[in-house]
């Protein structure tokens, strides 16, 4: 490369570009380039998620009153003291809304992660072994999926009682069936690859093959599924809490807040703001679900051709 060094600095030379040492873009640079190309809806979704996460993390700093502080007058209207009024036993609705972000999303997140650990682990195991283990787990999952999960969850909750731990475990186990199906389906295509065979031949253990050979190659569909599953878990927990058998008082959570304040709707003719109050936690649930869906849609579109059009 002796002649390129004598070259004028402001002239372009293909030889110099090819000869230059190629620097790989850092992870953050690549992420930024991808993000810049993301459509508006994806950006909107990410901003919504970031906002919710911020509220959930800093709930004690943002909320004007404590989660279960019932020292105020019941059913107070919207005012500067109580932005969204108070509920039936005099708790500040705005504060409970903020704490609800932390409780509802926290429980949904733990449940989703647990569902992925169970479902993903067994899915990989089934895909790699493909023997009687696979058969047993698959048939078991078939049966579990033959019962609607809300009905199953209701039945199990009546046995084990409604508390946060049994709620998390029950929903995680029921939802892990879908994760299992997906993981097994995508992992089966990867298990037959030569590099997996090579890893097996050089004597790697099952754990290594699951974690280092297969998992990185099935990440995109699993990440998308994580988003959708989170939405689904979130809606299920909200529905169960709304029905009064999910997250129990005094823990603030959006589903039960809707139920507790529902009677305010009948006063909508006299005070529209009172009528809207029970809808606000429901809207909070709807907005985060829409936000996550937007991001997952874009992510799927970006990483694969899984969508039906284009």
């Amino acid at each position, binding site marked *: 490369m002796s002649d390129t060094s004598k070259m004028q600095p402001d002239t372009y030379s293909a030889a110099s570009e090819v000869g230059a040492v190629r620097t790989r873009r850092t992870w953050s640079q690549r992420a930024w380039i991808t993000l810049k190309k993301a459509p508006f809806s994806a950006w909107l979704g990410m901003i919504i998620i970031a906002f919710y996460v911020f509220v959930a993390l800093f709930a004690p700093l943002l909320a004007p009153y404590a989660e279960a502080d019932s020292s105020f007058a019941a059913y107070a209207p919207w005012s500067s003291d109580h932005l969204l009024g108070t509920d039936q036993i005099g708790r500040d609705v705005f504060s409970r809304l903020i704490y609800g972000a932390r409780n509802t999303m926290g429980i949904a997140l733990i449940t989703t992660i647990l569902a992925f650990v169970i479902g993903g682990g067994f899915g990989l195991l089934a895909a790699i072994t493909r023997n009687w283990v696979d058969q047993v787990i698959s048939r078991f999952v078939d049966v579990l999926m033959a019962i609607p999960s809300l009905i199953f969850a209701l039945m199990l909750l009546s046995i084990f009682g409604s508390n946060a731990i049994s709620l998390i475990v029950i929903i995680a186990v029921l939802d892990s069936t879908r994760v299992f199906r997906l993981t097994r389906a995508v992992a089966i295509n990867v298990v037959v690859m030569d590099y997996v065979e090579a890893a097996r031949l050089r004597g790697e253990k099952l754990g290594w093959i699951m974690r280092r050979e297969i998992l990185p190659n099935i990440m995109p569909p699993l990440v998308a599924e994580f988003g959708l599953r989170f939405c689904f878990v979130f809606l299920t927990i909200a529905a169960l809490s709304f029905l*009064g058998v999910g997250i129990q008082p005094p823990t603030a959570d959006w589903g039960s807040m*809707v139920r507790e304040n529902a009677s305010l*709707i009948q006063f909508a003719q006299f005070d529209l703001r009172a009528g809207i109050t029970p809808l606000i936690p429901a809207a909070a649930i709807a907005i985060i679900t*829409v936000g996550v869906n937007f991001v997952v849609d874009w992510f799927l579109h970006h990483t694969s051709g899984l969508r039906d059009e284009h």
Partner: protein
Amino acid sequence: MHPVLATILKRIGLGVLTLFVVSVIIFSAVNMLPGDFGEAVLGQAATEETVAAFRRELGLDQHPVMRYVQWVGGVLQGDLGTSFSGRAASGVDRSRAVVDLVLPRLNNTLFLAAMTAIIAVPLALFLGITAALWRNSFYDKSASALTLTTISFPEFFVAYILILLLGTLYPMFPSLATVQPDMGLGERIYTAVLPALTLTLVIVAHMMRMTRAAIINLLASDYIEMARLKGESPRQVILRHALPNAWAPIATVIAFNLAYLVVGVVVVEVVFVYPGVGQLMVDAVSSRDIPVVQACALFFAATYIILNLIADVIGIVTNPRLLHPR
């Protein structure tokens, strides 16, 4: 044997097997209860004799297999056991038979589901098929955006918006759908408008998206392309080539959503205080009245399994490849 018949019999056999396993799971719910639940049901003051009598009545002193056979035998003869509620520590038993609790509500739930299905199924199929045919048009895109939003909404959110708008702000329909047994059909329908409308909105969104996806998938296949290239009219392509293969996916979509309806009913019934099986089940879960929970779970699970079975059978019966074997 005709291959279609063989496939259908195999599928029905599988369905019966699933029903059996599911009934075993629901049955074993009682076994999973903590050991002291007899006292929990009868109260702290229950004497040892009343607890023992209660356990004997449930048959907990017998072998589980024996109890399962008796339980299934009872279910098949319409005997679902007696409710846990209404029992007192003194041994006085005012509990009611589960059948008497469930049966009247069963009619109400089926009425609501049927009312929803009659509106939702034709509407969703029409919207889905037209959206697929006029793909990427303004109509298609706005329908997709609208349905995606509706799907993301929890059922109770849709329900309360409807109550706010049509129940209190512009009172047209009653916001509490408390149907009575002595109501006439017209009054019954009028009372159940809001819950049916809520369910319709949720179901139509799901169903339309699935129908659209199924039809687009179908129209993208090679033989449709071939028919178009042969120069057949669009009508002929749809009616003669696409439709025979479309019955299976459409039946699946309908059955899946009717099954979904069965579950969605639970939340909607609670919102509108509609006296159906869903509300009964939620109340029973809160009071841990296991026999009632079992009966409701059995009803929901059986409906779900049977609907899926019907969809699969329709898919097999209408499959041109199976009907005309080489």
